[in-house]
């Protein structure tokens, strides 16, 4: 009784299926392995990002990301690149922020061009596929450090549970000449259940995050007067879900606040500088995630060698952001995080 997850993704041969003939046990087994692979192989919660964020000595930097995880994950792998400007620095890592198990004190070197690579495994208390904030703390020691980069992905599962969360398919039940039962997690019905509940998302699209003590700020009332958030427009190409689809919807949110008496707006823009979507920031008390919204980019073109629709990086395949004070005559809007993710079903 085991729903093993293969190391490499299987590719069941479509040519072995002929009209009117039964589907071979071997084909069902390959399909079950592929279904287990999709449920068990970890996704990227967000791609590596570049906060370049200082954490002053004896203080703690907290990095907050918005994601929609996959409900089969049981661990998250965090990788951070941290450097120091003087010798003797160390950090303690903790995820989730404040409540996670603190790491040992980890020494940080002084070469800013070669930051230390730090791994941290966050063991989850429950499986969840609900959109949520995921957080990590970097607690500095007696010297200042700089958080150069952060990425996070779900740990791959070598084996799935036979239940209606993991939808593992028990491979033994697909042996030749075995009976076909309509029971969960077994026989062809288990494969169909897993397919029906597949969650093979390209989870994280883009993240830009800093500690809320060092936000990016805009006090201008026009987008044009502020420019763009990121130094370059970043590629965010969606996946094709249904046949013939040429675009994909991304969900996004910002971790932001605005000074009293004003409201703020953050726009996602394409490579032309055209607005794709706008989020309004109203929280004046503290930084908060704004209710998520959506925008679309090009989806891959699987007929092309590199999948870039149109044959080259173009306006529809890249995004940037900009912000402004939307109402009020004074005050600023403050941004400490912007994340976009794939929340599509199938």
């Amino acid at each position, binding site marked *: 009784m085991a729903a093993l997850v293969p190391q490499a993704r299987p*590719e069941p041969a479509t040519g072995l299926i002929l009209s009117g003939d039964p589907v071979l046990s071997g084909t069902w087994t390959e399909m079950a392995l592929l279904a287990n692979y999709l449920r068990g192989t970890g996704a990227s919660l967000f791609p590596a990002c570049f906060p370049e964020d200082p954490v002053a000595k004896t203080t703690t930097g907290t990095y907050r990301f918005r994601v929609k995880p996959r409900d089969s994950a049981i661990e998250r792998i965090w990788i951070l*690149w941290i450097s120091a400007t003087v010798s003797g620095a160390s950090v303690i890592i903790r995820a989730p922020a404040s409540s996670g198990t603190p790491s040992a004190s980890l020494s940080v070197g002084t070469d800013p061009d070669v930051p230390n690579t730090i791994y941290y495994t966050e063991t989850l208390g429950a499986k969840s596929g609900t959109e949520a904030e995921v957080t990590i703390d970097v607690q500095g020691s007696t010297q200042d450090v700089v958080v150069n980069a952060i990425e996070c992905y779900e740990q791959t599962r070598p084996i799935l549970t036979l239940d209606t969360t993991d939808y593992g398919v028990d491979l033994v039940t697909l042996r030749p000449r075995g009976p076909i039962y309509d029971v969960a997690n077994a026989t062809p019905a288990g494969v169909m259940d897993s397919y029906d509940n597949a969650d093979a998302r390209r989870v994280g699209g883009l993240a830009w995050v800093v500690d809320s003590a060092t936000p990016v700020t805009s006090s201008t009332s026009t987008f044009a007067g502020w420019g763009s958030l990121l130094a370059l427009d970043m590629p965010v190409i969606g996946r094709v879900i249904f046949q013939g689809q040429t675009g994909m919807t991304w969900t996004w949110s910002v971790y932001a606040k605005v000074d009293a008496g004003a409201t703020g707006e953050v726009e996602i823009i394409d490579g032309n500088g055209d607005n794709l979507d706008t989020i309004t920031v109203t929280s004046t008390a503290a930084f908060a995630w704004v209710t998520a919204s959506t925008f679309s980019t090009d989806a891959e073109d699987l007929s092309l060698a590199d999948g870039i629709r149109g044959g080259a990086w173009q306006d529809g395949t890249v995004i940037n952001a900009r912000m402004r004070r939307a109402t009020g005559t004074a005050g600023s809007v403050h941004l400490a995080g912007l994340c976009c993710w794939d929340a599509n079903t199938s």
Partner: protein
Amino acid sequence: MAKSSMFGGLVSLDTALYGAGDDPMDAVVMRDGPLNGLLHLADEYAQIRANWVGVEAAKLTGNQVGYRGIVASPSADEWYRIGEVARWPIQVRAGGTPYKVRLRIGGASDGTHTATFAAVITPTNWSGASWLGQSEDNVFITAGTASTSPAWLTGTSQGSAASGTLAALSARSGRAYQVPTSTLDDLGGNPAVANQLTVLLELFGKTSNTAGEARLHAVHASEYVG
């Protein structure tokens, strides 16, 4: 070798083709629906692994510079390590070939000399530097820039594919360098091991003069079934 699915997308089938629950379904409907669908989902289960970029120059504060780089390299036109940008367990196809990696590198120089960048995708039990100079497609080298303004740079993989957008590890690497990773078999469960091909994206820079500076501003890396 590109997509493995038949239709390059999930196919919506007419319910008349498979009838009510427990009715028999023709094998070809099963092929075009669930099998094509599983293959397609796996093709597109390619993850974006790095969207590494600093803020625009006007938004930099404190000691931020918005890039990482090499300054005053000891020798001109010699590669120096800028650093790691991402590490991840790359997806591997049935024959052992890892998914390709769509790459884009944004850089600049100090404006006085030409800066060039190299990206290497390597199994984590190898050093990226050991690949530099090899005619392999996991090594991607950009054109030079003498501008101080960050810009996306054209580049080419150094193997036979000579791709301007993709880097790729060989099937040999996919098979040979899988490493065991400790995990659990379920929430609060027993110790288990996941074997994965974990790769490292490492960046290097060089300048045409020892006083020059190569400034890495942005890196995009995303898996592609290609």
